[in-house]
Every structure is written in C-alpha cells, then in structure tokens.
C-alpha cells in the first residue's frame, strides 16, 4: 500500500484533510495496483463540487483485514475508464457518470444505470438537457447477430409479486449467449435527498433503502452517525442489533430455500419454508412490533429493550422453528430430482467471482471466504465469532447449501446471545456529527456486504452519503451465471441470487 492511501477502520471516521488528494492518474493507478494485489473495490463515488468532481474510492484487503481510501479532485470532464482492466469498477464508473456527469473514456459499456437526471443540472454525461424526460430501460443493448439467434425481452413487470427490472437475453434456441440487465425502475432519489442531511426522514429512508434488509442498512447508518458523533453504543444494544440482524438473515434465507424448492417444482419444502419464514419475521416483531425490524435501531442504540419474558418466548419459538426448518430443508438433499436440477446450474468460477467483486452468499458459494462479520467485525461480532461457510462449485446448489449452513449458524448465534444478554441500558443519547470527516460503516446483510460512507461539511452535514447495497456488486454475477444456460433456468438462477432491485436503484 503506498502513501497516498489512508487506512480507515470499519465503523470509524477520518478527517477529510488526512486523505491526500492525488492526481487522477495516480488515483486510478492506486485502484489498479491495489486490486492487482488482491484488494477489492468496496465503494467508489463522486462528490460534485463547484469546480468539478471529487472521486473517492474505498478499497478492502481481506488478507490483512484492512480498509483504505484514496481520493482525487477532477476538474476535467473526462477521465480514462479502468473497467476493461478491472471489471468490478464497471458499474461504479457508470454510476459516477450518471450522478456527476463525468465521462469515462473507453468504457466498454457506457450507459445509464438508473435513468435519472444528474445531481447538478447541466452536467450530463450523455448531453441530455435538464427538461428532457428520461425513459427507463431505453439504451443500446448488447446484441448478438446470426442465424437463429433471437432476443427475449422480459420486464419491467414480471409474472409474480416481485420488483421491476428489465432483462434482455440473446439466445440461440434455448441456450443463452448473453444476458443484459437494465434496472432503475425503483429509483426514488435516495442519495440526492441525503445532501445536507441527516434530515428528520433519514432513519426511515435507511430502513426502506432495501426493505427486506431494514436491519442491515439501518445498522450501517447508525454506525456512521455514532462514529461521527463519537458515541459508544451500550453492549446490550449491540447484542439486540446482532439478534435482529441474524433474524433478518434467517427469515430471508428460509424464504429463499423455499422459493428455490418452488422453482424446481418441489412443493413440500416450498410450502413449509413459506410458513417458517413468517415465524422468523414474527420473532422480529416481538423485538419491535414490525416484522421487518422497522423502528428497532436508532443512532445511539435500540429504541426497544427486550424483557426476560420476551427472551423466553423467543427461545421457545426459535427451537420450534429450528425443528421445522431442519425437517423441511433436509428433504431437499434427499430428493435426487431436486439435486439434479440444482447441481451444475448457473455456475460461476472462483476467478469470475473475484474479478466481478462478488459479495455475500454468492461469493462464498464460489469458495471466496468473504464476510464482513469475520473480516471487518462490527458491533457484537467483535466479541463473538461466527464461522464462515463456503462452498466450491459456485452453482445454484452451492448457493442453496450456503444459505442453509448460514441459517444454522445464525440460529446457534441467536440462541447463545439470548441466554447472555448483558445488563445495562440499551441506548445513549445521539449527538450531532463532527464536520469535515469521512465515516465508513460496513455490515453483513443477508445478501452480503453493505457499505455506507458519509462525507460531512463544516457544519457536520452530509456533503455526500453513499450507499452500496450488496446487489450492486452481485447483479453482474447473475448475468454471467446465465451464460451457456438454458433460458428456462433463469427463474431458478435468479432466485438463487435473489438480489435487490430497490437496494440497487436507491
């Protein structure tokens, strides 16, 4: 690591002045060099200023458990793209272009990400005027030409109760040559609304950035606010947050296990898991009244405490749910017709996973041992170690098995924590954040690494707040997994990733 990078720690902040501003070529070289040495891009964004754009890149080195940040002030409206050399930068560069109007020269795939006007009117990378309506999904799609090659377009409205997205398949008969995914339909303008924050609405916006990951995102937001204010969360609150985060993981993993079974037409597990998922959601509702964890976390701790009676109640329900879930999931592994559909479907190699910068269960299914709870521990995970489950085949089967292994670890964790909740308060007073700092918070949501970065102005307000949902890293993984597959396997592959549209679209 060279001198122009500044080390940061998860859940901490550094003065902006301590991050040396380098020239744009040095900045890009920093990213390429570190990625070459096994580092990974965690977050990469632009801060629009009066004279141009400040680029900030947060990088992670798992081997040493290090995070480092580099930045550059760019006054030109062009900068070379590094996507061809470093595929994990591909979407980040397009996002910066769309938000800040910076043009990445020779980007192989230079198109909008979310289809909205730039933060600063007039600075548009595609020279669209500010009063010109932008139509979602209208862009140049990659096309394959040739005899019997055909294109299948799906969405934004899909057949089930799911979020909208547009998928373009280039097919030869049943075989998919290429899939391009175009999102942005769920874009609600979250990051644009966070300039000058935190606002009175900010906590609820964080809770709904990806509504099935309420705890994961609000935990990251709380960590940002707590480090900026310099306050420490009581141990009791850390435990309650950890229990809620693992319940969120359990509910979603259970839902996914059921949905994967449903997509291969195995109805017993699909039916059982659909109901058991509700048991975990109801346990979260015991904590805070909401099945999705709304209103549990707040900067400084948790809004609700847990009584002894509620603890007992949770332990009882957890034991019942564990027994039901084990029974339902074990059916999958003993049904050859199920295993035949899961194995070797939608496989990604270890190398592909590394190059794309995958996170979460999708990465661990390719044998990439990557988990924020283990690598950059936060909250209760600094005190309790959760084993990281990995698999090697990178296929739908591996992604399914990882979910079950993680669900088991989460149940062990919750049970252990419920028996030893530390005494004391669950909340300290939140304070306003310090100015001119950059704060970093990483959490491990059920889909993988969630990263929030806040940059504050003199008054301690956000001059930029950047959210990276794990789906932002992983959508290209789904596209790659479809190559050479039958198009009829798309629903199954899609479910095995189960990525967020709203978390990506923000």
């Amino acid at each position, binding site marked *: 690591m060279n001198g122009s990078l500044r080390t940061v720690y998860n859940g901490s902040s550094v003065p902006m002045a301590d991050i040396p501003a380098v020239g744009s070529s040095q900045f890009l070289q920093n990213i390429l060099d570190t990625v070459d040495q096994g580092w990974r891009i965690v977050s990469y964004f632009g801060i629009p200023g009066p004279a141009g754009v400040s680029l900030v890149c947060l990088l992670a080195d798992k081997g040493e458990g290090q995070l480092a940040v580099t930045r550059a002030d760019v006054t030109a409206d062009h900068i070379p793209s590094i996507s061809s050399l470093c595929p994990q930068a591909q979407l980040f560069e397009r996002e910066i272009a769309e938000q800040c109007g910076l043009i990445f020269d020779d980007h192989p795939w230079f198109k909008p990400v*979310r289809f*909205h006007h730039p933060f600063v009117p007039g600075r548009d990378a595609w020279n669209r005027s500010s009063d010109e309506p932008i*139509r*979602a999904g209208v862009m140049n799609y990659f096309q394959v030409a040739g005899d019997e090659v055909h294109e299948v377009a799906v969405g*934004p*409205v899909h*057949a*089930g*109760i*799911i*979020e*909208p997205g547009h998928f373009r398949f280039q097919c030869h008969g049943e075989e998919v040559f290429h899939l391009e995914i175009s999102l*942005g*339909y*769920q*874009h*609600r*303008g979250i990051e*644009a609304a966070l300039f000058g924050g935190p*606002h*009175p*609405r900010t906590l*609820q*916006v964080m809770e*709904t950035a*990806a*509504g*099935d990951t*309420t705890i994961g995102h609000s935990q990251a937001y709380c960590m940002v606010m707590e480090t900026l204010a310099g306050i420490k969360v009581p141990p009791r609150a850390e435990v309650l947050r950890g229990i809620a985060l693992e319940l969120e993981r359990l509910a979603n993993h259970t*839902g996914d296990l059921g949905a994967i079974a449903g997509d291969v037409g195995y109805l*017993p597990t699909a*039916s*059982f898991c*659909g*109901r058991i*998922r*509700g048991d975990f*959601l109801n346990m979260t*509702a*015991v*904590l*805070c*009244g*909401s*099945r*999705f964890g*709304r*209103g*549990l976390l*707040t900067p400084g701790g948790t*809004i*609700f405490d847990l009584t002894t009676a509620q603890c007992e109640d949770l332990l009882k329900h957890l034991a019942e749910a564990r027994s039901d879930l084990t*029974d*339902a999931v074990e*059916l999958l592994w*003993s*049904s050859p017709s199920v295993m035949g559909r899961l194995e070797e479907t939608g496989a990604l190699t270890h190398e592909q996973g590394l190059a794309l910068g995958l996170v979460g269960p999708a990465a661990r299914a390719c044998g990439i041992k990557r988990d924020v709870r283990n690598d950059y521990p936060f909250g209760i995970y600094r005190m309790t170690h959760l084993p990281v489950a990995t698999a090697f085949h990178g296929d739908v089967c591996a992604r399914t098995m990882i979910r079950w292994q993680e669900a088991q670890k989460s149940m062990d964790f919750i049970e252990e924590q419920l028996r030893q909740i530390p005494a004391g308060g669950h909340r300290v007073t939140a304070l306003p954040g310090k100015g001119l700092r950059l704060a970093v918070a990483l959490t491990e949501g059920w889909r993988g690494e969630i990263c929030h970065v806040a940059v504050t102005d003199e008054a301690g307000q956000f001059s930029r707040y950047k959210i990276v949902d794990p789906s932002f890293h992983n959508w290209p993984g789904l596209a790659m997994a479809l190559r050479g597959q039958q198009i009829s396997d798309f629903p199954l592959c899609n479910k095995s990733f189960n990525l*967020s*549209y*709203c978390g990506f679209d923000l």
Partner: protein
Amino acid sequence: MIRAIVSRIKQGHRTMPYPAAPLQMPERFRGYPVAASLADSADRSPECPYGAFSAAEGGCLDMGKCLFCAECPAGNIEFTTDHRLAATKREHLLVTPGAPRQFAQALSNDLLRILGRSLKFREVSAGGCNACEADTNVLSTIGWDLGRFGIQFVASPRHADGLWVTGPVTNNMTKALLTTYDAIPEPKIVVACGACAINGGPYIDSPQVCNGADGLIPVDLYIPGCPPHPGTILDGLLRIIDKIR
C-alpha cells in the same frame, strides 16, 4: 417420497383459523391510534416529517401518510394493536378524536356479484422497498392461504380483476403501471397497499416519485402501514368482498 409424507405429517395443518378466531398481534405492534393521544399531541405544535399529523380538529392523524414510527416524531401519538386499518375512501384514513371509526366497505352489489367469489389481482411494484411485496406474498403461503377466500394473484393483467399497487410510483415505473392498468379488463378495482402506494410514504414529495397511485388511477381500497401487517391486508380484502363486516 415417504420422507416427504412423514414431513407433511410432522409439519401438520398450519393454516390459521382467522377470521373465525381473532389474530394474535405482537404486543409492540403499532396499529389504530389512541384517540386521546391525538388530542394530547395536537397541543405540542406537531411536526411530522411526512405530513401525517396536523393540529386541526383537535389532532388529525392521516393513516395514509403515517409510517407508524416507533418514536412518533409528531409528538406523543400512541398506537393500539388493532390491525384493522384499511379503508375504501381516502378521507376515511383521517383519524380525529371523537369521530366515528371507519372500516372498509363492501364493493357495490354489481361488483360483488362479479368479483365477490373469485377475485384475481395483478400486482405491480412501482418503487416499493420489497416489504409490502413480501407481506402481500405471504398471504399466499399455507399459513394464511388466501386461496380459501377465492382471492389469488395472477401473472397476466388480462386474467385479473384488479390492480394491486405497492411503492410510491416512481417516475421510471409510471408508464408500466398505467399500461398494466389499461390491460386489465373492466370492471376492475385498484388496491393501494402500503403508505408509499397511498401517498408516497417515506418518499413523499421526492422529485423522483408521483406520491402514490391515487392521483394516477382511481383507488378502491387503501391499506395503511409501512409495510401493512398481513392481517391488515387480509382484513381490508375480506371487508370489500363482504366476508367480514
């Protein structure tokens, strides 16, 4: 195969008896507001960041805008665990102290004759955070078994009797939502599920959203909550098809 049968016996019959027996709501669930707390909060010059509360008429809470926050930013509003929140008219979501309680009303006799025993919806997520979607989906699981009431979510708008909207209706989804609405044959109804679909929810007045479905298409059933509890959703549905009164 034998294992699956053994599991089926072990897992048992798990469809809940509701509506024959009452729902067990979690004790911290935030449902219908306590009238006295509205009057109390009206004296504190309330400021809800979502515009859900005003001091008018002795304290007026708009359940269509309310996110049922754990710590009410508008003062001191308390909530009961009563999950019955759905309404068929937008103004019925306004709660004031002393005003009569309004529940969702049954569809007209003509509509009930056509849709009352078989009601199919096409769902469109238009900026939803996947929580309203998830708790709508959960109604089709064995625990709730929505099919026993003749209600089902279908894949094509051509097969549907109604449109089910979640999300604040983003600019990028407006066209797809309206196209789906147009594709549903008459007569049709519209359900706005969740605070976003009713009035924009946490995203009210964002330049990227339309503040819900209400201004775009005629809404027949409003289901408040962020997200609504499945019990709240089912209560509204059973009331419009006249299965509970």
